[in-house]
């Protein structure tokens, strides 16, 4: 079995993909949650996962950095297969893959600054001084320099998510995985987080993001991946999938959620039918 793996990764090694997943399967509680998912993202690209709740978007994102180990399949970072059995390799790999969660997952006992700093010290081995400097810079980048001393309990949802983004960015990830980064936010706080994500994309960050913010992501994404029942059932540029006259499932899904969220009212649905 191991030599098969080696052969497979040697075969297609030269590719400009930063992160690549091949043939991911995952079964949870008897349900096939990921069913042969392939994915490959090039440097500076933005891919957006959309699809109904339960489609497997979170599972896919968590399999991509082995927070959930896939039952089978391969993950490659810059053409090199990640050996999930080696703890050391796994930790090194995860440092290069930033992850943003729907419910922030800040460390509640640490201030905003300490949240950003802790892995720099513990994982990257920076001195406290270096780590602090870097953490302050990252907090400034997401507009939270003046909140550095506050604890998560005293931050708004939008601020918490921006701290989480700063915390991930501090590790200098090569790619970021974002799992519905604005879904837990009150509507008036969504904008500040989307603005940070837009800055990241424009700065050339490679990102894979699950979201229901269709019109926002249509303006950023190079590709939409529409997932349903553990499979990527459609993929293509936002224009292809949402364009006039498209009869894609993506289109139908987007129309439905923009109806539900009332996006239609402020003209966003127009963007949804590019």
């Amino acid at each position, binding site marked *: 079995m191991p030599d098969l793996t080696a052969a497979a990764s040697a075969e297609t090694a030269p590719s400009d993909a930063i992160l690549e997943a091949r043939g991911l399967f995952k079964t949870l509680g008897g349900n096939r949650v990921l069913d042969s998912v392939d994915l490959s993202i090039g440097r500076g690209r933005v891919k957006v996962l959309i699809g109904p709740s339960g489609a497997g978007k979170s599972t896919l994102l968590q399999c991509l950095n082995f927070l959930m180990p896939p039952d089978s399949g391969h993950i490659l970072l810059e053409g090199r297969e990640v050996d999930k059995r080696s703890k050391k390799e796994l*930790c090194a790999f995860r440092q290069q893959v930033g992850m943003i969660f729907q419910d922030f997952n800040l460390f509640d006992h640490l201030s905003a600054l300490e949240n950003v700093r802790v892995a720099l010290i513990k994982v990257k081995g920076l001195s406290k001084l270096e780590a602090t400097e870097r953490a302050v810079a990252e907090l400034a980048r997401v507009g939270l320099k003046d909140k550095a001393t506050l604890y998560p309990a005293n931050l708004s949802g939008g601020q918490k998510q921006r701290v989480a983004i700063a915390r991930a960015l501090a590790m200098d990830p090569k790619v970021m995985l974002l799992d519905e980064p604005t879904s837990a936010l009150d509507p008036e706080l969504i904008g500040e987080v989307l603005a940070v994500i837009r800055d990241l994309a424009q700065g050339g960050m490679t990102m894979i993001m699950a979201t229901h913010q269709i019109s926002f992501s249509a303006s950023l994404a190079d590709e939409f991946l529409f997932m349903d029942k553990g499979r990527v059932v459609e993929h293509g540029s936002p224009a292809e999938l949402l364009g006039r006259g498209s009869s894609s499932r993506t289109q139908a899904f987007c129309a439905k959620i923009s109806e539900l969220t009332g996006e239609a009212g402020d003209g966003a649905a127009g963007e949804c039918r590019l």
Partner: protein
Amino acid sequence: MDFSVAFNAARDALPYMLGGVVWTAGLIIGAMLLGLALGVPLSVLQVYGPKPVRRAVSLYVWLFRGIPILVQLYIFYFGILSWLSTLPGLTSLGLDSPFVAAVLVLGLTSSAYQSQIFRGAIQSLPPGQLKAARALGMTDAQAIRTIILPQALRLSIPAWSNEYSILLKDSALAFTIGVVEIMARMRAIASTTHEPVSMAFLAGIIFFVLTWVGVKALALLENKVRIAGYTRQGAA
């Protein structure tokens, strides 16, 4: 009962009784620390360990919670420790002292209870934080040390202070194997002065003060390590 006779007897006995505080304090500090040193890793193993390890921990916990302290004192003092201290190389360690036996029994029992306090605290933390720590490249050991335990231990202080007051009372059983703590002194001096009631009152007051001091100290500690807005649910 002549109140002034009783009072004078208690006053005269006070220095001798207070001498017992050193032993009692030694017992509970030793037992709390031993219980902490074992209870923390036990709780971590019970939450994150593989199944056989979790089983073994839970057996340990049942054993020490299930066997009365008095029985354990006899088993350890007259049995295990007196046997161990006859082994070559161990004779000079003083393992056959009643104090060592009492600290060991109280500490092991407390570790069983403390492990359950910490386990509950660990399990009450939102699970996403461990994921976030792993996603940053921390090993599980790093995540547990820097993210999980600092929060779990903070949350454990109220229950810990309860454990302290229980230990304090359990420590009075150490007189049965000859530790000259407060209870042992109360019995000794009651029989020489024939003032058992006033000696019992005196011992009661000393135990009460020790409880009060310890619980207050832990409340101060809790306050000192408190984090803005931090509650059992974390920042919801």
